[in-house]
């Protein structure tokens, strides 16, 4: 079996500007939604209490809301989780709430409601301080990933590649966040892990293309820079599609079989994979071109250095 039978290099670079404008628009939209709607942060970041209760039959949400309101938790959010039988209750941290006892009180409140009795599936209580630390640690991790990858790429390739790869991949990350902001999907710790993994994954993709660019520059003397980029992308395109297809199959299995917890994790990865292909081919490569990559940067004559100083 073979999918790709490409006779000539595909002229990706000819449309580079168009794609980058599209990218820029998506990026700006993502930033806009992040700024206006914000992320729907999970209890791990905001602090608060989260209780998952499972009923044997479809749960009635209104009596639960009412009972909790009477008990002094009017700001409790009650919603279905996964199925009609599972209920998720969220409560923000409050000064006057004895946070350590909340789960017990809520469970006893639920037990006082008529009808089927619920079974406690999961309780998560996170203090406000812990949430803040998680958020700063997450930001630190992101920063460290960016710096580490840039340094590695700059050392292995050239600074132009490092800069364009990082811009292209941050663009992916922002777009994933934009999706989460727009749809108000829950942004939890596993999702953060997915986002950071996407950063590594998406750079991975750019590196494969860049690797080919470097090789082509060394091998073919007469090619112009856009042609080199086109050739590099075209000759790796079958690998790009197959690899991402395979990873996506795995992620799809997680989306289907992984349940509620892995759902958003897999969703973040799906968006990351789609934009990862797009950005490494159509954002990172043109950026490298515009930053002025050329053959000379890879074939370094030793004596020229002195002249360059003058």
């Amino acid at each position, binding site marked *: *079996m*073979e999918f790709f039978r490409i*006779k000539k290099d595909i002229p990706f670079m000819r449309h580079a500007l168009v794609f980058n404008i599209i990218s820029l628009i998506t990026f700006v939209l993502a930033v806009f939604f992040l700024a206006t709607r914000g992320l729907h942060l999970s209890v791990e970041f905001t602090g608060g209490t989260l209780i*998952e209760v*499972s009923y044997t039959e479809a749960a009635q949400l209104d009596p639960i809301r009412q009972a909790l309101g009477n008990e002094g938790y009017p700001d409790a959010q009650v919603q279905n989780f996964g199925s009609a039988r599972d209920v998720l209750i969220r409560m923000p941290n409050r000064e006057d709430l004895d946070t*350590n006892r909340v*789960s*017990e009180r809520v469970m006893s409140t639920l037990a006082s409601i008529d009808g089927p009795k619920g079974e*406690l*599936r*999961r*309780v998560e*209580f*996170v203090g406000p*301080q*812990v949430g803040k630390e*998680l958020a700063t640690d*997450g930001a*630190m*991790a992101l920063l*460290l*990933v960016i710096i*580490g*990858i840039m340094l*590695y790429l700059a050392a292995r390739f050239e600074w132009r590649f490092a800069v364009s790869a990082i811009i292209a991949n941050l663009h992916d990350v922002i777009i994933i966040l934009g999706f989460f902001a727009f749809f108000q999907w829950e942004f*939890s710790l*596993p999702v953060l*892990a997915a986002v*950071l*993994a996407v*950063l*590594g*994954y998406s*750079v*991975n*993709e750019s*590196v494969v293309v860049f*690797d*080919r660019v470097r*090789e082509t520059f060394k091998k073919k003397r007469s090619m112009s820079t856009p042609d080199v980029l086109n050739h590099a992308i075209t*000759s790796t395109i*079958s*690998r790009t599609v*197959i*690899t991402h*297809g*395979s*990873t*996506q*199959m*795995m*992620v799809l*299995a*997680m989306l289907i*079989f992984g*349940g509620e*917890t*892995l759902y958003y*994790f897999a969703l973040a*990865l799906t968006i990351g994979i789609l934009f990862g292909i797009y950005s490494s081919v159509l954002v990172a490569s043109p950026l490298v071109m515009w930053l002025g990559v050329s053959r000379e940067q890879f074939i370094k004559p030793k004596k020229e250095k002195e002249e360059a100083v003058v």
Partner: protein
Amino acid sequence: MNRYPLWKNILIGLVLLWGLIYTLPNFYGEVPAVQVSSGKATLKLDPATVTDRVAEVLRSAGIEHNGIFSDISGVRARFASTDVQIRAKDAIERAFNPDPQDPSYVVALNLLSASPAWLTSIHALPMYLGLDLRGGVHFLLQVDMPGALTKRLDSTTGDLRTLMRDKNVRHAGITREGNTIHIRFRDSAQRDAGRSAIQGSTTDLQLSDRDDGSDDLKLVATLTPQAQQTMRDFAIKQNITTLHNRINELGVAEPVIQQQGAERIVVQLPGVQDVAKAKDILGRTATLEVRMVDDTPGAVEDAIAGKVPFGTELYTERGGLPLLVKKQVVLTGDRLTDAQPGFDGQTNEAAVHLTLDAAGARIFRDVTRESIGKRMAILLIEKGKGEVVTAPVIRSEIGGGRVQISGRMTTAEANDVALLLRAGSLAAPMEIIEERTVGPSLGAENIAKGFNSTLWGFLAIAVFMCAYYALFGVVSTIALASNLLLLVALLSLLQATLTLPGIAAMALTLGMAIDANVLINERIREELRNGSSPQAAIAAGYDRAFDTILDSNITTLIAGIALLVFGSGAVRGFAVVHCLGILTSMFSAVLVSRMMINLIYGRQRKVEKLAIGQVWKPGNN
């Protein structure tokens, strides 16, 4: 050209065999067991004698066991079924704790790995499952360090007072103000005497002079940074020990109690469902304090009116009577070696019998001798709030370190207080700042979900690879399977905690690991397309793809390591598997698949065609 030397084949074979052996324990599952551990902080459990005793008890009761094992935490016996397990537990319980009111040992039901002994003996253990996969409770506790510092300074204040008296230095009052201790003097000669006395007795204090007026000379003492650091370290260690003892009372198998950061402690209790009980035992940050009662006439009335006399605090005695207690602590729970519930010999009231250590006994003897006729308050401090348990009048000097607390207690309360005190007091109060509970059915569901998504994802990739790359696809699939094998073996060996995000990382890593094989296979096809001979195409394909694989995996690894360093909880569980998976995937994609290809094609002198699927050449369509 495509041959590995024999040693390389053997080496790869050995690595795979190692992977298989260390993966094995995960398939055996768990068998019911009974765990015996020490029930008292004072009782040291000797594994050898306890093992013999357990064996003896089981033999005389006619119960068959499948082996008895011991480690630092206790002794465990395995059984064939849960019925036998429960009978065995009852038998052992009866033999080890003849008095159920005063258990010396904790006998608890447990689950042990069912893998054969030879696997266990080479430390091949199943993966440690996180709470989200097996159910249980997770607590993150914050140690109140400022509180510990205040407590330490308060006791230092008392020590200084004694020191001044012993050395005959006249002072005009010693008080703690914030994080400093102020000692007032009337003249500088006394101050110099005081300074040299303090410097002669301790190196933990930094002293500085302060003159607030001609007749108000002060010595300001602060704890040195080293002393503060030692105090912090001690506080967290003491609290961990105390938690160990308290959790032991719950009879939990394999609890996790670890320090996290400078002032936090993680407690994980797998399988615990009675959260309220667990919280109660953990959260009761009770410490015992013995202080003197201020019986100055009229002082209590003043205090109730809002004018609490200097150096005292107002408390409520059990039963509601107000009581004025001096701030100076005579004795703390640290000096306690044992506490047992019981009854007062004369009144037959419920009581708690305390035993003090040597230093505590001496202090107690001195204080009781000096204060005959006065009242002494025994306070239980819980979460910063004190309660006077009892305030008896001292009739005579109490020596020997045996003290009894009684008064308005029910038997159950006496039991609780004794348990609390026996388990040891905390060096500093703690607060639960994070709590997670996962039901056992949810845990089993999570495992099934994670397992299914990995399985189906793997199958989809395998089918595709075999269809697309033919024989090379089969080799890639085997390489991918060996990657999974090595990853599981490595996780089992490291006893890293596997969580649901960890399983997700496993699935994602497998999805990404196939990239290396795709790179190689595509490269070989390309070489063939450009007219290379099959053997040359294999060699060039593997060699050229290697650089790319290295670069792309290192960038991914950088991201993984950042997650590992800065992540916590779910993120860290993800990162561990992700990082290890990248390493194993490089090994399996490059070396294992190359070895197989070499074994298939390397032996043939002339290879006509590679079974790598269709290779289309631009010239011949």
